[in-house]
């Protein structure tokens, strides 16, 4: 009797542990797949990819918005900080950062920035930003790799070309050689 009770308890513990381990693994695995897909089309990590407007042929990330222009960069801080800079249009714009476990640990939008340009440096915990970068322009990532995403709301369809031109001024680049 004691054997069967012990076996049952063990089975329950293993099942619960496996369930939560699987839950924890899913976002990491989905991020890993997304990072790989984006880096492949961008030509590497720390390279920005200005995606085309989403249609039904778009298959990179689920539930894309056809009313936004997306630019994505898979960042890798292993060799040094990464800089994000560019121009901001007069419609909704945001720069958001997602850690390796999918947490949205940073976001800034057009209404929170004065002027029409942005310039941020991303570092990992314990990493120093280059000298001269204001502290309010330094973002700390909880993970070594992740995804940065620029979203621009296409407020009017006939502005697509104009908005696309503006977002293509955006860039992400490693500062590894500048430290």
């Amino acid at each position, binding site marked *: 009797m004691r054997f069967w009770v012990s076996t049952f308890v063990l089975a329950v513990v293993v099942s619960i542990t496996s369930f*939560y381990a*699987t*839950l*924890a693994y*899913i*976002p990491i*695995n*989905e*991020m890993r797949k*997304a990072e790989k897909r984006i880096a492949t089309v961008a030509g590497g990590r720390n390279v920005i990819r200005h995606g085309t407007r*989403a*249609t*039904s042929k*778009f*298959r990179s*990330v*689920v*539930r*894309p*918005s*056809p*009313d936004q222009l997306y630019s994505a960069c898979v960042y890798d801080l292993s060799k040094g900080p990464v800089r994000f800079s560019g121009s901001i249009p007069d*419609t*909704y714009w*945001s720069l*958001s950062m*997602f850690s390796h*476990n*999918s*947490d*949205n*640990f940073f*976001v800034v*939008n057009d*209404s929170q920035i004065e002027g029409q340009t942005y310039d941020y440096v991303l570092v990992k915990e314990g990493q120093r930003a280059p000298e001269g970068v204001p502290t309010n322009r330094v973002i700390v990532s909880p993970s070594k790799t992740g*995804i940065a*995403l620029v979203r621009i*709301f296409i*407020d*009017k*369809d006939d502005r697509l070309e104009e908005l696309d031109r503006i977002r293509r001024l955006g860039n992400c680049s490693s500062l590894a050689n500048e430290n």
Partner: protein
Amino acid sequence: MNSSVASGNWWTNTVVGSVKADARTRAYVAKIGLLALAPEETTYYHLFDVDGEPISSDFVYELRGNQIPARWWSITLYGEDHFLVPNKENRYSVKSTQIEREADGSFVVYLSKEPHEGNWISLGNGQNMSLSLRMYNPPPDIRQRLDKLDLPTIHKIGKAL
């Protein structure tokens, strides 16, 4: 912890994209909304059924709404695979900046397989489809009234031709 909140047929999650999200929410968001923003930045509502049945191209639907509290908003249709539904007109969504409104500021959107006058989203040949409402820069107190918002209602108004 149950972090899902319903407002009519629409539901949202209070911790999407947040570092506070529990393991179950993270896993779910990773599957159907990877790279979603936190609710303070963009609030996402999803609608998966109309009167208890999934959205189908076999029917015609009417979606009616008023003022949605956000700086910008859009409503987009997704297929069962969570990607945009193929249709030759590329009509996947409507948005606040281009929607045609009634005199009182309200709006009506038709969802059907065949083109429809006015605001129209194509259902293509899809089945088991869903809608997402994105509210960009919602009011700061949005978290306190996620279940009380005046969101669009949707009803089946007939069979597809």
